[in-house]
């Protein structure tokens, strides 16, 4: 069944391949395979823990390197005038393959280690100097600010010396600090040799600090403080802190010691300063000079650090890429098993059969790059294991395939509904979203994303990324919505009169008037006369409801028919006549008949008929309740009773047919095998005759299970009970499903009705009210302008985005439940080849 070209219809044929790789080319071979991205390695030592694997030490070293690279990157990114990291495309690549690669990596490792050491040293002294600098700055502030206090005190102490009353603890000292002055009475008033503590503390802690001191010293202190305007910037974390300078006068060494302790416990920094003005001035000069020195050193160090980092930045991207690749290669090498005697590594894995020659070429290329003369040897294995499912998607189909894969990964080589979802998904969406205007805007949005693909790619945020990923879906949804909009004759809730209407309004009557048919039918879509007429909903509801059922039955029939290629491909003719045929008969004897009746009723001119048009819903109900008897007034066609009895009987026969035939056949087959004497030696013999019945069984049982990678254990006991239970469930599910799923397609009508009504209401509430406004020209113009803005915004936000999402969800459900449920086994597991491209994407995300 393999064709010349891959298609979405079935997943790719896969081969289980064994590679014998001489250890000297192992690294380059894996690299080459990952470059091509079409080989999925299997773990050949699943029992070995991660620590015991041979390349784990190497991986650890690589992890260390990648940690270093991350460190460098974060340091470069936090550099103050930002330093650009040249992208991967702008720098020469780091060679990861070839005979020199190993050395190159060792050198790289040394280089990174050296860089890290230097950087860490630099950062350490940078930090120390920074701390030093901020200390000096604080001291400078303390000196400056306290100078103010001392001066103030010196000026005032003569005036207030008599007013001191140190024992007056009740006086709220802090509030009245200025009045009380700064001097305790005992000290020599003129000599001014006070005892005090000065320093800085964080501003937020200041009030607490004050209160504690006040309590601890029972008010025996005088405190003064002032705010430092400039924030201090922490050299390591870059955090800003605001600080206050404080100076506390108190008497007695004990009190001073207490103050010091309190200040230190609150995280304050203490600076000793002298009380004499001259010495303070000296200290200030000294501090300023030292600060200057420190700043100069810091500046130089910053420059060297920047140079160092820019040197690292140059190679950073290529190193990162190389280390990432190397890590992936060694992780893969860990999966292989090592043949000690022959010095070869043995790899096993899946590869698309179509790509085998490409892989062969790749192996030769790897040998050349490695500079040896022994290539890896490829041999194909025959296996009973289930291969992974691999669909080759393009940027156009990948969105649709994702929709299907979200439901389940296709069983290996089964018919892939993704191929058909390309059209049916946007179409069913459009049936719910039909509006020329909304559809066209959506189409333009999709078109813009498709045309400016290159410019947009990778430059939008995560939420919009989803829309971008589905751009082709949006494009097709928009296109189909425009078409269905023409069918519904709806453009922003108005209608187009492209052709002449099939109805005319009488010109002479007033009040409630009915239009008169001109005898011809509006050729393309719904007649515009219905738009705005009083009974338009009655007509469109009946039309859309019936259309939903017709489309639903056709869609489900299509889905059931997709079973057939599967049954033929997997060589199970039994399933065709034990499942497919009764299913399709059951479905069509009830709902197919309904569809035929709908179409028949439409095509009969009831105004010429002797009977009134019958209700089809009642007809369907009475087909079950009173089979065979039709009331003459509700007869649709002659002989209706007989036809309905036959159809009902067919449907009834289908139920036991689905239920019993398959288990019976399987049981008979099993007995036949048993009689041939194969029983009991199954464990030894994996020959031809024995497999068939069991294979069927396995398939049924493991329909949704994980594929087990144990090749040779397949002697399932034949369990009749299991088969019967499974078949009963399957039959009930199908019969009930037929009814509920058909009803489920009515959502097509419901959603399209809701969409049309919502857009009509929006138009009436905004634009129409503006057009009907009777006021002065200027006001009306502004009113219309505002209302248009509102209408347009809400059209985009509610009618297109939100309604679009809701219709999308319903289309999704119709595909997953109603269609996929009929044929899609979805018991596969995805093909996940080793690929550098995928790894790169993940790392960037």
């Amino acid at each position, binding site marked *: 069944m393999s064709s010349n070209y891959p298609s979405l219809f079935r997943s790719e044929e896969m081969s289980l391949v064994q590679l014998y790789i001489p250890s000297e080319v192992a690294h380059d071979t894996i690299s080459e395979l990952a470059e091509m991205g079409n080989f999925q390695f299997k773990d050949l030592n699943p029992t070995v823990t991660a620590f015991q694997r041979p390349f784990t030490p190497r991986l650890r070293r690589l992890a260390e390197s990648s940690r270093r690279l991350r460190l460098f990157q974060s340091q470069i990114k936090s550099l103050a005038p930002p330093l650009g990291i040249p992208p991967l495309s702008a720098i020469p690549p780091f060679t990861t393959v070839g005979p020199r690669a190993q050395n190159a990596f060792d050198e790289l490792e040394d280089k990174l280690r050296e860089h890290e050491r230097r950087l860490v040293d630099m950062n350490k002294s940078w930090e120390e100097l920074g701390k030093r600098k901020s200390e000096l700055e604080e001291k400078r502030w303390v000196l400056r600010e306290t100078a103010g206090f001392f001066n103030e005190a010196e000026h005032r102490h003569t005036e207030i010396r008599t007013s001191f009353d140190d024992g007056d603890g009740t006086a709220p000292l802090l509030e009245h600090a200025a009045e009380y002055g700064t001097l305790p009475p005992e000290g020599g008033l003129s000599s001014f040799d006070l005892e005090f503590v000065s320093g800085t503390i964080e501003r937020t802690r200041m009030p607490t600090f004050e209160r504690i001191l006040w309590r601890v010293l029972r008010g025996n202190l005088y405190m003064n403080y002032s705010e430092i305007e400039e924030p201090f910037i922490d050299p390591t974390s870059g955090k800003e802190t605001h600080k206050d300078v404080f100076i506390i006068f108190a008497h007695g060494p004990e009190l001073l010691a207490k103050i010091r302790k309190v200040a230190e416990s609150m995280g304050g920094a203490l600076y000793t300063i002298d009380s004499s003005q001259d010495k303070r001035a000296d200290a200030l000069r000294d501090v300023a000079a030292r600060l200057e020195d420190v700043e100069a050193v810091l500046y130089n160090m910053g420059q060297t650090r920047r140079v160092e980092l820019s040197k690292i930045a140059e190679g950073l991207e290529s190193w990162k890429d190389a280390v990432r690749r190397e890590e992936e290669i060694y992780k893969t090498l860990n999966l292989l098993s090592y043949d000690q005697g022959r010095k070869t590594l043995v790899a096993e894995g899946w590869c698309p059969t179509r790509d085998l020659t490409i892989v062969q070429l790749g192996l030769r290329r790897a040998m050349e790059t490695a500079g040896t003369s022994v290539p890896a040897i490829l041999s194909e294995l025959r296996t009973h294991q289930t291969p992974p499912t691999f669909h080759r998607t393009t940027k156009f189909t990948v969105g649709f395939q994702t929709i299907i894969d979200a439901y389940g990964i296709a069983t290996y080589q089964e018919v892939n509904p993704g191929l058909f979802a390309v059209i049916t998904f946007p179409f069913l969406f459009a049936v719910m979203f039909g509006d020329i205007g909304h559809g066209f805007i959506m189409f333009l949005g999709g078109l813009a994303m498709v045309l400016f693909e290159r410019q947009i790619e990778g430059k939008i945020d995560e939420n919009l990324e989803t829309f971008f990923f589905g751009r082709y879906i949006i494009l097709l949804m928009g296109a189909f919505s425009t078409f269905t909009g023409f069918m519904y004759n709806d453009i922003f809730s108005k209608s187009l009169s492209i052709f002449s209407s099939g*109805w005319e309004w009488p010109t002479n009557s007033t009040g409630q008037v009915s239009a008169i048919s001109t005898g011809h039918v509006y050729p393309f879509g719904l007649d515009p006369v219905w738009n705005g007429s009083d009974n338009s909903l009655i007509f469109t509801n009946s039309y859309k409801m019936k259309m939903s059922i017709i489309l639903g039955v056709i869609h489900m029939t299509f889905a059931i028919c997709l079973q057939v290629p599967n049954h033929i491909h997997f060589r199970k003719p039994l399933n065709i006549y034990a499942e497919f045929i009764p299913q399709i008969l059951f479905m069509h004897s009830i709902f197919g008949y309904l569809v035929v009746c709908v179409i028949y009723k439409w095509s009969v001119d009831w105004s010429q008929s002797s009977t009134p048009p019958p209700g089809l819903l009642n007809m369907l109900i009475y087909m079950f309740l009173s089979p065979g008897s039709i009331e003459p007034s509700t007869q649709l066609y002659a002989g209706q009773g007989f036809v309905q009895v036959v159809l009902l009987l067919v449907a009834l026969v289908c139920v036991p047919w689905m239920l019993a035939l398959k288990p019976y056949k399987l049981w008979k087959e099993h007995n036949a095998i048993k009689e041939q004497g194969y029983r009991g030696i199954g464990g030894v013999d994996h020959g031809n005759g024995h497999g068939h019945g069991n294979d069927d069984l396995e398939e049924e049982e493991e329909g949704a299970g994980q594929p087990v990678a144990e090749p040779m254990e397949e002697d399932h006991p034949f369990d009749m009970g299991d088969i019967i239970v499974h078949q009963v469930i399957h039959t009930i599910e199908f019969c009930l499903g037929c009814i509920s799923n058909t009803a489920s397609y009515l959502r097509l009508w419901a959603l399209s009705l809701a969409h049309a009504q919502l857009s009509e209401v929006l138009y009436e509430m905004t634009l129409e009210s503006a057009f009907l406004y009777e006021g002065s020209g200027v006001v009306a113009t502004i009113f219309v302008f505002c209302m248009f803005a509102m209408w347009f915004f809400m059209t985009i936000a509610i009618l297109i985005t939100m309604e679009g999402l809701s219709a999308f969800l319903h289309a999704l459900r119709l595909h997953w439940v109603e269609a996929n449920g009929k044929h899609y086994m979805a018991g596969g597991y995805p093909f996940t080849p080793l690929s550098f491209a995928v790894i790169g994407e993940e790392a960037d995300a």
Partner: protein
Amino acid sequence: MSFFHIVSVGFVVAIIAAAAWFLTPKGKDQVLIRSSVALALTCCYLMWAITYLAQLHPLIAPRRADLRFED
């Protein structure tokens, strides 16, 4: 007469679909193009045909009470 329209348009659509089926160049997208064109044509034709049929012998006539006549 009108039913004839549906059949004839269906015929035209079928011819277009067949032409697209056979004119699709061989290549890796052949299956995709063939199935997509055929399905798209079928869907659109179905929708049109249903809409047309529904108006063929209408059971009710549009009514409205807000007509104004200009004399």
